[in-house]
């Protein structure tokens, strides 16, 4: 080993000792921060490991779409049930009747005659 190499080795050794000392003499606040960061990093791996079996995004989207289709179907079929259709037709007829004031008297007479017929039938 040449003299130059020996000097360089001693120089590097001294610098390393100084750097080691700086690393060893770290203040408690910095050490706490480092420990906290380390815990977060380690916890992130645990989250990642559970995320391996987590529900994929497409599955959530497909599920939401299916729920929407079912809900829409339920609303559609309940809204358009045959009984409601009859009710709606009856309502429309009433509206037609009420919207024609000229014929209202005729309709009332018809009801009277129907009642009269029923009464006679009973009598």
């Amino acid at each position, binding site marked *: 080993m040449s003299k130059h190499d020996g000097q*360089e080795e001693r120089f590097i050794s001294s610098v*390393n000792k100084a*750097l080691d000392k*700086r*690393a060893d003499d770290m203040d408690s606040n910095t*050490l706490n921060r*480092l420990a906290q960061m380390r*815990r977060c990093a380690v916890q992130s791996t645990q989250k990642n490991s559970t995320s391996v079996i987590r529900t994929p995004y497409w599955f959530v989207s497909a599920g939401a779409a299916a729920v929407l289709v079912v809900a829409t179907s339920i609303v559609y079929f309940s809204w358009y049930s045959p009984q409601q259709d009859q009710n709606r037709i009856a309502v429309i007829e009433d509206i037609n009747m009420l919207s024609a004031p000229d014929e209202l008297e005729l309709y009332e007479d018809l009801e009277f005659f129907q009642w009269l017929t029923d009464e006679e039938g009973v009598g």
Partner: protein
Amino acid sequence: VLIPVIGFKEAIDHRVGLSEGVLDSTQALNAFLADVERRAYRRALIATANREDALDIVQEAMMRLARHYADRDAGDWAPLFQRILSNAIMDWHRRQKARRAWDRIAGLASFKRPTSEANDGSDGISEEDMVALKHYVENNANDAPSRELMNERAMQALDGALNMLPIRQQQAFLLRAWEGLSVEETAHAMNCSQGSVKTHYSRAVHALRERLEDHRQ
């Protein structure tokens, strides 16, 4: 330090208990990070001369390792972590460079490097600190209590001297000389050729020694 003797990776494995197979992967990762965090922080601090930036860099490196490489063979963590840390430091350096360039364009130029902001000396290290550093380097075996203050100044001066090195030289020196990585491992960590590592390292040693010689006269 055993690292240069038995190899960096093996030394880390041994210290965190991986070679004995006594830890599960989470405990092993925790032990590994605990083992490297101080030195990682010191490396980042020397590069940035800013405590918060250094902590951010170490946090980023820890998170990246944990998220992307936790499932890898634990023996791979050491070189991966060194590479991630080096990349994070280089990214920080690039951002600072871009910011300085922008400041210059905006007429708010600050041509000083971060260390210069913390020190009054034009080169970022005071004359007294440099003398103390020289003294420390020459007499580190002598641990007389009266040298305590002198040593503290020497430490600060050393940080400053390292911080003044170009970032590639600085990283090559710290990885080779302090972390005990081989030329090949350093090249992997720095993502450059082995020839570049040798050049950066040689220039770094030369610059540091020359700086000390200047102050010795």
